[in-house]
């Protein structure tokens, strides 16, 4: 697509996308150093793009790739534990496997996949044409990719990190973890952290400043609300892990002794820093899933979300209380009775807003005309699984019982019910729900249902038995178990371990079917028709535009009058009979909007700088590990790129276009810098 789609004549904006010939764009010497990228097709249009939709899709593709990687790592772990004295992995490799599995899933799959949804949908949901800082957005994506790749190169460079995803110190100091794995881990996460931080700032500004006219905060779609909460959590959680990672880097690569007990250091420092980040992080992981089902459940129950305000406020409450409970991860570390009691109570408190949400979802479905589409199945699956995970969470909020459970498979069961059941199922609901929006075609429902049921059965078979295994005392992170100590009868560890391993493969087949579904829907010979404009009878703004949306999202920025604006445009209540009547179709609404389209739409132009800046960072990181000279080289590139970036206007000059623009575009709502 053209960089700037501008109707060439003053005639009304054509109603059908693409029928207005896009203006030709000529490259100009934008600012001294590099020519401005202008390709509108081919790989360049992706690599240098600043379009939030393209970036969203790229986030999604890369996160999916890492999901598969993390999944393979998980399967190897389950293979190892399928029988007694497993020999699939060596002890060292086993440590690397569970560490990288968790790290990959948390930092390279769930968080970026949530970013994919947020990037793609937020501007559409709030009626904006892009995010506030498009180039920073691109920069964030490339940081994520650069950091993720960097982290995974450690597999080929002596071994990956092996200290567990929370990388406790001094256990992960050079003495006990002599490979460079932990260095790669610290530096890689530092780089992906930049993506989270910049993304957070970007989305908060976007949401607060760029909503369509009429959209007050309490008329904002619930998805947008929950993502806003997540971004605030990220904003304040990322710097804490940044500090921790820097200290770790100085410790391992520059000889400092922050966590070295022999030098008088306090190993709890790491634990506090990590979990001050870590507990907010679990909400960062799960709230996007909540956000998605809060959108999906009402649509397929044909009812508005029950207690919108409660869902908003409980989301915000989670956002606050989430900061005061981190030490429940440290009950067993000798904090002292007062701290333990305080954090125990605080942790129980946080179950309240979480429970509020579950009640709201249930009441949304209550009495609704429920349609069990695949998206809906995943959403309902989330509510059920997450409830189980929340309940086991409360059992270890009780400190005495937690000292029994901690570091056993019971914890593993808990957080997989919350993370897989709460976040991942939500993401899959989102895939099925928004697929037609992003790609113009509906995924196959039949394959989708197989996909759902296999994942659901697989998940419960894998993680359900872990409650039993854990209460029987099998520790987490142990590379094998023995027949001699497996116990008898119903509680036999061997039996339940086998069930869990078989379950994990069923789960994997379920995920595989999702990929098959994508292929099936989009393969060249596919007879899947183009999706209708409004396939689900949806309620929010993103469905007011075409699928997939044009580069500038909306020909005319819609004016908002109500929560669930799109629904209210389609339906009216008959005041005499009290009946809800359909008064307009999606096609009619779209046509009406497009008929009044804006004539001049300036979009931010593509840029080379974000990707250059982002890929200078791993150069520096390799430098930290291997050769200090590289730090200087990378640093120089960073410096250059920052200057280049600052000197490049975010919107290419009027003279960059052919025919030249008359100046003063209507890009008021786009930021001037960034």
């Amino acid at each position, binding site marked *: 697509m053209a960089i700037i789609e501008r109707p060439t004549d003053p005639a009304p904006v054509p109603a059908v996308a693409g029928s207005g010939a896009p203006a030709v764009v000529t490259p100009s010497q934008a600012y001294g150093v590099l020519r401005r990228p202008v390709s509108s097709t081919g790989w360049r249009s992706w690599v240098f793009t600043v379009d939030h939709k393209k970036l969203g899709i790229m986030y999604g593709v890369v996160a999916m790739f890492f999901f598969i990687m993390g999944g393979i790592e998980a399967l190897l772990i389950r293979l190892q534990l399928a029988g007694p004295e497993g020999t699939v992995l060596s002890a060292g490799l086993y440590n690397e496997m569970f560490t990288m599995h968790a790290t990959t899933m948390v930092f390279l799959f769930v968080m970026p996949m949530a970013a994919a949804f947020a990037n793609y949908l937020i501007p559409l949901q709030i009626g904006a044409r892009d995010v506030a800082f498009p180039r920073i957005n691109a920069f964030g994506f490339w940081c994520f990719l650069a950091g993720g790749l960097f982290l995974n190169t450690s597999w080929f460079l002596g071994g990956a990190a092996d200290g567990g995803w929370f990388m406790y110190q001094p256990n992960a100091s050079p003495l006990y973890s002599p490979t460079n794995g932990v260095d790669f881990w610290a530096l890689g996460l530092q780089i992906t952290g930049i993506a989270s931080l910049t993304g957070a700032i970007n989305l908060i500004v976007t949401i607060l400043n760029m909503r369509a006219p009429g959209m007050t905060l309490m008329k904002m779609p619930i998805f947008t609300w929950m993502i806003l909460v997540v971004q605030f959590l990220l904003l304040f959680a990322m*710097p804490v892990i940044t500090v921790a990672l820097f*200290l770790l880097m100085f410790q391992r690569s520059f000889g400092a002794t922050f966590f070295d007990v022999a030098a008088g250091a306090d190993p709890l420092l790491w634990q506090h820093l990590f979990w001050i980040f870590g507990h907010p992080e679990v909400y960062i992981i799960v709230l996007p899933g909540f956000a998605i089902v809060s959108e999906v459940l009402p649509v397929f129950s044909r009812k508005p979300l029950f207690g919108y305000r409660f869902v908003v406020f409980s989301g915000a409450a989670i956002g606050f209380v989430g900061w005061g409970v981190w030490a429940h991860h440290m009950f067993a570390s000798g904090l002292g009775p007062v701290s333990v009691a305080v954090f125990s109570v605080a942790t129980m408190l946080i179950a309240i807003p979480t429970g509020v949400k579950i009640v709201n979802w249930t009441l949304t479905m209550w009495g609704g005309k429920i349609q069990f589409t695949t998206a809906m199945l995943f959403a309902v699956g989330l509510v059920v699984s997450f409830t189980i995970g929340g309940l086991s969470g409360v059992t270890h909020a009780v400190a005495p019982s937690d000292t029994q459970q901690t570091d056993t498979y019971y914890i593993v069961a808990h957080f997989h019910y919350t993370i897989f059941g709460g976040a991942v199922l939500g993401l899959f609901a989102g895939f099925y729900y928004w697929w037609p929006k992003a790609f113009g075609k509906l995924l196959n429902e039949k394959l989708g249902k197989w996909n759902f049921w296999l994942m659901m059965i697989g998940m419960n078979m894998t993680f359900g038995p872990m409650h039993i295994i854990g209460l029987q005392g099998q520790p987490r992170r142990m590379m094998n178990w023995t027949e001699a100590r497996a116990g008898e009868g119903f509680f036999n560890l061997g039996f339940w371990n086998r069930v869990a391993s078989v379950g994990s493969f069923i789960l994997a087949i379920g995920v595989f079917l999702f990929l098959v579904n994508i292929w099936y829907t989009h393969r060249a010979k596919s007879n899947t028709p183009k999706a209708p404009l409004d396939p689900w009878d949806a309620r929010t703004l993103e469905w007011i535009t075409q699928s997939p949306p044009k580069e500038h999202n909306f020909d005319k920025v819609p004016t908002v009058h109500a929560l669930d604006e799109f629904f209210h445009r389609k339906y009216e209540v008959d005041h005499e009979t009290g009946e809800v009547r359909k008064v307009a179709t999606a096609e009619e609404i779209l046509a009406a909007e497009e008929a009044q389209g804006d004539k001049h739409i300036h979009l931010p132009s593509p840029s080379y700088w974000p990707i250059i800046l982002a890929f200078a960072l791993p150069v520096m990181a390799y430098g930290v590990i291997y050769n200090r000279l590289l730090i200087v080289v990378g640093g120089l590139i960073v410096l250059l790129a920052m200057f280049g970036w600052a000197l490049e206007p975010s919107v290419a000059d009027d003279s960059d276009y052919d025919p030249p623009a008359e100046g003063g575009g209507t890009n008021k709502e786009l*930021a001037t810098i960034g």
Partner: protein
Amino acid sequence: MAMWLFLGSECLLFGGLISTYMLYRGRHSAELGPDQIFDIPFTSVSSFVLLMSSLTMVLAVSAAAQKDDRRTNLWLTITALLGATFVGGQVYEFTVMYREGLGFTTSLFSSSFYTLTGFHGVHVTVGIIMLMALVGINKRSRVPGDKAEVVEMVGLYWHFVDVVWIIIFTLVYLIPA
């Protein structure tokens, strides 16, 4: 607003670093602790220089608001120079301490001290780069949109870094260990 958010995040970054320092500042050998190593008069002077740069930054922002390019550039440059003086002073201070035997890895105190103040120094340096970029943009007059706003944003950052220094100076240098 973006800058406000970013600075909010930065508060936690420095919060974490300062906490680390406070935890470890007593952990050092007898001769090389905070009370022995700091040269308070010298650091006071360089702190004063940094404070002055906040003043010149205010002047730059007000000049930008009046669309006076020449004066804006002048004050921006002076601010950058004052900032550079401060960083120079820090480099000098570090060198002296290093000569006296306080290396980065000497003790927990030294590691956390250098980390904290080093981070702050990097922030000042980034600020200087931003100021220079502003001057560059101004010269070629290619700031898209509202120039004054951009100058104000950088100003905000600059004041923040100053305030952080005042906190660090008080906690690290002035309060005896």
